[in-house]
């Protein structure tokens, strides 16, 4: 299905010269993964509008930009963490510039016992045996188009390994996108593995510096062991000219918990794809989020939750406010396998139009093959409820204040699903600043 071709593009030539210099190039297994990925890109290219899963998010504009590969933090000099990065008290900050670790901007602390954090480069060079069984195991190049692009050109990323019963820690990964004189693309590859009983909070902030366009294409492979809990909170505030196309592939073991929240307040074109394989019985998955779009911003949250075995619980609440000529997309597929009895799967998407110009597309897909399950999905898009507005005004609150309260309330209702109190407060602040910027 070659619908748009990435590889007829300067993009490819700029990358070709780099092949030999990519990390792990001398190791046959890595080279093999990359060759397969490049083969897929050669035959399929990037998904075009006729690919069902990508019909609402076209990449025609991406392939027109002559991105150069950015593989080192030294390409561009970023001396401080940009404004707009939320402060999460007690979180250890790990800063990536164009997908590469910046030791200078990151907090200099030792890993606590039971937690190992290193770069992909480091692990490929020193401990490839740890990565070999993991890398590409959850996100194969054939499954996700962006995974193929990532695997072909991944140059660095973070490897985060929590040992059995690791009692918990909060990491804040700050990804800064910064193009110099030319547009750049980067393809960080992250691994997060929690052994049985481990707990970890990972906050990701994706932010950019104004300037030339950049393409951030992170891929994260996440494995949550038995009775382990990972909370992953992702905030995207990329530059308005930037592209952010991310993929996360998650595997949950028995009684494991994966809680995710995706907050999107910036970026030119953003697509976040999250696929969760609920492989163990009694696992819990929560993927909630909200997007607040203005101008010509485009955001797509695509989730795939696979209830492979029984007694699993999944819930999703995704809310969006759209203004200007923006475009919001939510696609949520829930698959309940034949033997996945006693599954409880819920999904709700709501979008609020602040003006007449935006577009919202919602595509829920339920594929249920088991008979003893509870599944519910709902979608609602519309303008502000006049009954709500009247109620507030009937108490003396002026129309502008009442509208602002209702938009804020609409969004805070999603924020309330974040179980971590500090992140909830920080994300609430981000929403409130978005509202203030809009009102200004």
């Amino acid at each position, binding site marked *: 299905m070659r619908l748009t071709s990435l590889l007829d593009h300067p993009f490819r030539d700029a990358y070709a010269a780099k092949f030999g210099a990519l990390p792990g190039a001398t190791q046959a297994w890595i080279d093999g993964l990359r060759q397969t990925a490049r083969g897929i890109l050669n035959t399929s290219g990037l998904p075009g509008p006729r690919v069902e899963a990508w019909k609402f998010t076209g990449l025609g504009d991406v392939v027109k930009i002559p991105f150069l590969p950015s593989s080192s933090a030294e390409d561009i000099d970023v001396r401080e963490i940009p404004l707009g990065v939320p402060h999460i008290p007690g979180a250890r900050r790990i800063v990536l510039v164009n997908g590469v670790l910046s030791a200078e901007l990151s907090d200099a602390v030792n890993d606590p016992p039971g937690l190992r954090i290193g770069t992909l480069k480091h692990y490929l060079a020193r401990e490839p045996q740890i990565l070999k069984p993991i890398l590409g195991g959850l996100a194969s190049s054939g499954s996700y188009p962006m995974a193929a692009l990532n695997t072909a050109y991944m140059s660095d990323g973070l490897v985060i390994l929590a040992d059995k019963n690791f009692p918990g820690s909060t990491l804040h990964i700050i990804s800064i996108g910064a193009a110099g004189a030319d547009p750049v693309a980067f393809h960080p590859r992250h691994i997060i593995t929690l052994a049985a009983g481990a707990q970890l909070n990972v906050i990701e902030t994706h932010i950019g510096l104004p300037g030339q366009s950049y393409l951030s294409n992170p891929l994260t492979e996440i494995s949550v062991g038995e009775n382990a809990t990972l909370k992953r909170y992702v905030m995207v505030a990329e530059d308005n000219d930037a592209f952010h196309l991310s993929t996360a592939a998650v595997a949950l073991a028995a009684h494991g918990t994966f809680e995710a929240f995706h907050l999107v307040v910036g970026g030119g074109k953003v697509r976040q794809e999250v696929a969760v394989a609920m492989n163990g019985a009694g696992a819990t998955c929560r993927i909630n989020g909200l997007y607040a779009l203005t101008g010509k911003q485009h955001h797509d949250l695509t989730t795939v939750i696979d209830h492979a075995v029984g007694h699993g619980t999944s819930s999703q609440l995704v809310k969006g406010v759209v203004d200007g000529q923006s475009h919001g997309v939510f696609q949520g597929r829930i698959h309940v396998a034949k033997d996945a009895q006693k599954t409880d799967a819920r999904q709700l998407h709501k979008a609020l139009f602040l003006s007449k110009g935006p577009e919202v597309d919602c595509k829920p897909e339920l594929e249920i093959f088991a008979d003893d399950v509870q599944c519910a999905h709902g979608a609602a898009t519309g303008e502000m*409820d*006049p*009954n*709500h507005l*009247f*109620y*507030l*005004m*009937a*108490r*003396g*609150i*002026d*129309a502008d*204040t*009442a509208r602002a*309260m*209702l938009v*804020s*309330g*609409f*969004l*805070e*209702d*999603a924020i*309330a699903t974040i179980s971590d109190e500090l992140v909830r407060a920080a994300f609430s602040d981000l929403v409130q600043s978005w509202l203030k910027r809009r009102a200004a």
Partner: protein
Amino acid sequence: MALIEIKNLHVSVQGKDILKGISLTINAGEVHAIMGPNGTGKSTLSNVIAGREGYEVTQGSVSFDGQDLLAMPPDARARAGVFLAFQYPVEIPGVSTSAFLKTAINAKRRTEGKPEIDAMEFLKLVKAKNKALGIPDDMIKRPLNVGFSGGEKKRAEVLQMTLLEPRFAVLDETDSGLDIDALKIVSDGVNALRGPTRAFLVITHYQRLLNYIVPDYVHVMAGGRIVKSGGKELAYELEAEGYTKYLAAA
């Protein structure tokens, strides 16, 4: 001078005439009750007074303390001292009850040229009022009306009324869905606000509420008109005889 004066009020909704010439004068200190069968325009009257969209006034006027009420937007009416206790208070997720109450109180105080209430004063004030209404303090931390029972919603309406201290309050079927205990609490809340400077219009289908909030005047509404007015004894008569004869007359 009359606090509220409704003169020959005609209202249509989507081209259909609902109110067909209502005239009613309410003085400060008085409690009036409007009773009538369902679908006769009682809620239309309360919505027009509060300023809800979708109602077209085709004739007549409503003045409040000498001002043309119909020319004011709903928020200005509320700040001037008009209050509607809703028959069906809406649930608004994400907006905390306390933030809503504080915003409403301060909107009114600003209009009156008073300083805004601070967080401590506000909490103290709400706690005191909660106690009288049997409202648990943590209720105001919850999103506005979300998951409140029918009784809690009506009590919350009375709490709002108590905090905003309106000069004229319309209670639209405040008794619907209340058990006898809740009815008593709500009525006590209303009675506590009665006074020489304040007036009430109590809209109800049943006489029961009027045992607790005893009106000075009772009006029977049918077919979009007030067809009979009298003292509180009129309510007992209606309870005994029903609305049938008024429906026929309308």
